[in-house]
């Protein structure tokens, strides 16, 4: 009989693991990046002739922010807090006002025909606009669309937009599109 190999004392593995654990717990970063997602328009082809995109005047609302972070929506100056309601009214056009965007009937797969607004929000800013003001305006625009989506979702499915499944969300997204166009940069401050 050979000698028994002595067993390694394993009572301190827990301590070692604890040390490692503490190290990883302290270095770990669990912060998730959150923000407003956007899709930039593709660069226009320089060889292509610039065709005037005929967007009916009533279908477009121009939101401008100047270098002093003042806001102009449509043709009236307003505060950021008023913007959401203005946009909601613009996009939903409840009373079929001829000055507000027209709607087109679109066949949505899985839902059927639906009246979808043709409204487009055009956002213009100055080079001197602060990023904070820009994000605040972007946020209000998204909020307006999100609230309209929620209203649509509740009316049709009885649930909030976030609680719907993927397919239903897709339908709602088609019914209430988020058409925000970030205009070509131009110097708004004319001297």
């Amino acid at each position, binding site marked *: 009989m050979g000698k028994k190999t002595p067993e390694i004392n*394993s009572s301190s*593995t*827990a301590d070692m*693991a*604890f040390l*490692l*654990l503490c190290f*990883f*717990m302290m*270095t*770990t*970063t*669990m912060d*998730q*990046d*959150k*923000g*407003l*997602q*956007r*899709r*930039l*328009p*593709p*660069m226009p082809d320089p060889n292509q002739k610039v065709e005037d995109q005929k967007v009916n005047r009533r279908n477009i609302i121009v939101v401008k922010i100047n270098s002093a972070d003042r806001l102009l929506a449509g043709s009236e100056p307003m505060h950021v807090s008023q913007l959401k309601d203005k946009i909601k009214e613009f996009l939903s056009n409840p009373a079929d006002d001829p000055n507000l965007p027209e709607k087109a009937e679109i066949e949505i797969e899985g839902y059927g025909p639906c009246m979808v607004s043709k409204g487009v929000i055009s956002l213009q*800013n*100055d*080079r*001197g*606009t*602060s*990023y*904070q003001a*820009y*994000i*605040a305006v*972007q*946020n209000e625009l*998204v*909020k307006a669309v*999100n609230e309209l989506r929620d209203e649509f979702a509740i009316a049709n499915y009885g649930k909030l937009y976030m609680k719907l499944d993927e397919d239903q969300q897709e339908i709602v997204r088609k019914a209430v599109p988020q058409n925000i166009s*970030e205009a070509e*940069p131009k110097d708004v401050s004319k001297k």
Partner: protein
Amino acid sequence: MSKFKQKEKRTVPQPPSGSLSDIVFMLLFFFMVTTTMRETESKVVVRLPEASEIAKLERKDLASYINIGAPIRSLQAQYGNDARIQLNDSFKTVDEIRDFIAAERDALSEADRSFMTVAIKADENTRMGIVTDVKQELRKCSALKIIYTARKPAE
């Protein structure tokens, strides 16, 4: 009566501590898997703007970061306190974004390239001029998916 006395004498059995290390190891693996080391050192001060309607960035591994803000205090003597663009580890000019995006795109697999997102982390006091320049440059290299990083407003 004697029954009760007997019970008092009995010692409470120690819970088995043999599996303690296993439990700790499991926790350890969890943290090792979830941890992400900070790859780049921040050279600009970024205080994110507030926004309530924010969505999560879906795939962190597909994101490239562009930081815009004033240099940190120790670098202000060298670079001034004008807003600057930081890519990876150094200050860059707007024109260098193109190379940065190309490099980031090459690092991704073929299938993931169309999902690449550029996260713009700009300080809330930055002027839009520099952000617009960055956006134009991104459009030129057709990195169209962007996210304006923001934080939830404190309630």
